[in-house]
């Protein structure tokens, strides 16, 4: 009798699947439960951001930028504004910079809450997700007070802000911060220190430092591999050099350095660090200052001017390459989105793991498809 004929099975995970965090398609080549190759297929959410930007004035691009990463719209608007301001050489009033930092860090917390919660969901715990959404809702309330919107704010404009903070905003922000540490403790109790959660994530999908750097993986994923690289520290923009905070890195507390648990834990610790930054910024926030004073009437960077500006988005390094031809319309706006590079490393780190682990690893990379496909 001949040997039984076996072959590998190609499994399409997505574009509609509960755990691909959007319309992502993973082509898995599986041998039973073991996955031997993962090919991410992207582009299902491509909205031609870069083509749109070719035909729009500088100011008109910023709402589009918000929509790229809809989980962290504030950060994206901030990144774009910083890039254009650097091209023009605009100095901002201190109040604007402080409010921007506060907003950016609140958005980072909100984004990490989704990352932590959906990661719990991917591993099978439903309750932590709802807990995380509860706190995110409070942050969205704050954003709504300031900008009027809950998801896509267009709050940070080139050279200033859309509105000043409304009365009572600062007090509410303090209120949130006072409660927040207790809630993080809750997440730790229900998820972080859960034995099953640790079994599922520790040592799973280890991302070695060299591989991470080579693939251009940045943000919490790179820091989870043990490198304290953060654009806010290495190349400080805005007022980040005025605050006291540390860059959390993965230490392999439950397994080896760079595993899914480390990437998760870095996000938990980053939320606390962001809360620290917000508290300092709120303390230092100048009472006076016109948030629209520095907004330029016409934006015409010199002909041939170009910039690649780096920004620390919740998902990693968000870069804007902007090129001017001297008119009020940029010739090229390229968005180097962090999740685009982060997910390209997926195949490298999920080979040989089981199908459930691929979902864990994907969740630990914290991707947003809007940003990958643009």
């Amino acid at each position: 009798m001949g040997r039984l004929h076996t072959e590998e099975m190609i499994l399409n995970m997505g574009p509609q699947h509960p755990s691909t965090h959007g319309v992502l398609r993973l082509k898995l080549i599986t041998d039973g439960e073991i996955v031997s190759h993962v090919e991410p297929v992207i582009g299902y959410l491509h909205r031609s951001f870069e083509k749109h930007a070719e035909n729009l004035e500088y100011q008109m691009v910023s709402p589009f930028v918000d929509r790229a990463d809809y989980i962290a719209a504030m950060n994206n608007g901030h990144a774009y504004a910083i890039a254009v301001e650097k091209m023009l050489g605009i100095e901002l009033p201190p109040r604007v910079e402080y409010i921007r930092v506060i907003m950016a860090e609140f958005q980072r917390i909100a984004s990490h809450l989704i990352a932590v919660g959906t990661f719990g969901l991917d591993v099978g715990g439903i309750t932590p997700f709802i807990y995380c959404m509860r706190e995110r809702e409070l942050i969205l309330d704050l954003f709504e007070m300031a900008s009027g919107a809950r998801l896509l704010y267009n709050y940070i404009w080139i050279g200033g802000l859309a509105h000043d903070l409304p009365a009572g905003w600062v007090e509410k922000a303090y209120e949130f911060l006072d409660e927040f540490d207790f809630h993080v403790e809750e997440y730790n109790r229900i998820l972080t220190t859960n034995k099953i959660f640790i079994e599922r994530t520790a040592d799973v999908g280890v991302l070695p430092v060299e591989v991470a750097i080579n693939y251009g993986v940045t943000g919490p994923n790179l820091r989870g591999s043990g490198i304290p690289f953060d654009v806010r520290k290495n190349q400080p923009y805005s007022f980040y050099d005025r605050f006291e905070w540390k860059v959390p890195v993965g230490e392999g507390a439950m397994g080896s350095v760079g595993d899914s648990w480390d990437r998760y834990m870095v996000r938990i610790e980053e939320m606390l660090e962001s809360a620290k930054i917000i508290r300092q910024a709120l303390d230092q926030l100048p009472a006076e200052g016109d948030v629209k004073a520095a907004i330029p009437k016409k934006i015409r960077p010199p002909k041939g001017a170009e910039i690649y500006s780096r920004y620390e988005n919740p998902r990693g390094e968000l870069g804007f390459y902007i090129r001017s031809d001297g008119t009020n319309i940029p010739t090229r706006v390229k968005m180097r989105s962090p999740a685009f590079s982060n997910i390209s490393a997926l195949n490298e780190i999920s080979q040989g793991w089981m199908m459930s682990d691929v979902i864990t690893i994907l969740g630990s990379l914290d991707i947003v498809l809007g940003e990958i496909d643009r």
Partner: protein
Amino acid sequence: MTEESIYSQLSAKFGDACLAFENEASHNPGALIDSTKLMDIMIELKENPAFAFDSLMCVSGFDLGEEAELGMIYHLYSVSLNHYFTIKTLLNRTTPKVASVANMWRTADWHEREVYDMFGVIFEGHPDFKRILLEEDWEGYPLRKDYVPAEFYRGMKIAKER
């Protein structure tokens, strides 16, 4: 290491291949190089321990105009030495071809595919060369300045810009 000293060392080694040092208009100073020598210069930048550019932050294409050339710009960063450099090169519009650096920096894999997708630049030696964001059978390269969208895509009418 400053960008100037990186450029002077590069031009000392590669001579004519380094066309110019760009630091006036650009906020990220770097070298404009001859596209045929790209691979050699990139290997030097990555492997030379004095440069040690272990991270390729971004690869972007750009179009200088309907009559002019296409450009490629590589933003490099060294995590270990914490310095930056930019490599820019101009390509012929009709047959844009350049060596792929995807095997050196895996970041370039997807970024080069995106540049191909949007500008039609052919990367020689790329391990998995195909479109990434658009459909495989999409016609044309949208981010070129002379791009005219097709009338139909698989029988669906493509909306015209107003």
